């Protein structure tokens, strides 16, 4: 029995979300990592609140990038290990749809969760409440873009024994524009100047990766699974 593309997409997202919620520790670990990294910075920086406030956008964004990267490794790995991914490829659905579904589900459980947790971290770092909306919007756009970039990297490193290190090496250089504009948006929101330039740039990057990265990621999976 074959199902339509939308139905396949919906079923796959549902499956991924089910799997994630059955193993809550996998959901929570990147978030805990995010919290720990951001608390390590103030401890290392002598607890000067003024200094901390200047650095907080950068700290927040670097921690967000690292914690998203931490969970990217699992995007295709477990499915590739037990053969599910091969079955999905053979299912007759386009590989692009499969990659899009998996990446969307991955973003919902990591990126979106991170956006929701970010106000707690932001409060601890001394970011004013007025800047929360911009910060959360920029994080949402940034983590979604990162998920797409990460899907390419994760696809390329399926089946590699030390793929995790290589994955960081591939994805982090490509994600530097996110860090620059994301931190800039948060920084400007704190100082009260116009944030739209940086937000537009993040949105453009997000649209760019949303449209092109699925094809690249599907090609990557095809190469490594062959």
């Amino acid at each position, binding site marked *: 029995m074959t199902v339509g593309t939308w139905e396949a997409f919906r079923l796959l997202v549902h499956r991924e979300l089910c799997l994630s919620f059955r193993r809550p520790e996998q959901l929570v670990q990147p978030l805990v990592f995010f919290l720990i990294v951001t608390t390590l910075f103030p401890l290392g920086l002598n607890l000067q609140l003024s200094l901390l406030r200047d650095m907080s956008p950068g700290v927040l964004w670097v921690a967000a990038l690292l914690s998203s990267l931490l969970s990217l490794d699992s995007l295709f790995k477990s499915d590739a290990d037990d053969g599910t991914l091969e079955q999905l490829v053979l299912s007759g659905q386009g590989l692009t749809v499969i990659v899009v579904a998996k990446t969307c589900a991955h973003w919902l459980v990591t990126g979106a969760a991170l956006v929701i947790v970010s106000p707690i971290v932001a409060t601890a770092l001394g970011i004013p409440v007025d800047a929360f909306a911009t910060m959360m919007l920029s994080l949402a756009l940034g983590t979604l873009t990162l998920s797409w970039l990460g899907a*390419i990297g994760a696809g*390329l*490193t399926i089946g*590699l024994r*030390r*793929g995790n290190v*290589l994955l960081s*090496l*591939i994805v*982090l*250089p*490509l994600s*530097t*524009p996110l860090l*620059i504009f994301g931190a800039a948006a948060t920084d400007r929101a704190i100082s009260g100047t116009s944030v739209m330039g940086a937000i537009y740039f993040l949105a453009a990057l997000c649209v760019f990766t949303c449209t092109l990265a699925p094809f*690249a990621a599907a*090609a*990557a999976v095809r*190469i*490594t699974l*062959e």
Partner: protein
Amino acid sequence: MWTWFYKLASPPYVYGAAAALAPWFLGFAALAIGYGSIAGLAIAPPDYQQGEAFRMIYVHVPSAIMSLTTYTVMAVASGIALIWRIKVGHAVAAASAPIGASFTILALVTGSLWGRPMWGTYWAWDPRLTSELILLFLYVGVMSLRSAFEDPARGDRAAALLAVVGVVNVPIVHFSVVWWNSLHQGATIVKLGAPSMPGSMLWPLLSMWLGFMLFYGAVLCVRLQGEVLNRERQASWVREAIKS
């Protein structure tokens, strides 16, 4: 008229062509770099603002241009190899990556040596400098991805895809001085209108650029021979080529 193009997909032909071309490239590269160095370092007048330190341009600019050119060559070769499944494309990409990484390191090092007397700092987190550094990381990523796979064919194709994806960084490096307010100076030579440089300074620079390009061609030819031989080591023509 297309036969020469088809021939480029044949490893024995490419091996022979690379062996024949390498000495020519090397010879002309030596001439161009020789003239550029003498004219640039000794004959060209000192800059009215930067004095003698501007002579760093004769190494810095050609190597920076070549870091981008090499990446583009690598990405195009990778794209050709992925789309038409031409194995020689992978060999060209694999041979280019270390050369491009070396040009990038050279551009970064000469840039920071030049930056110290002019800007007062070896390094600034400036868009041009940062994107060039990212270019270096991309080269490293492509090279390590290629070597990470046990199956070389798979490693080739994975690295090729990454090279094609990473090509988005090339226009970012090139236009970074235009798009952002940058510490790095803007375009001097390649722009609309006349170059903002007198001929006595410009000609040595163009000669160095040509020389670096020819030098890349020469090193590529030598490395490509090694890559092709290694990839085709099971083929019968390799045995004959090595015997003769």
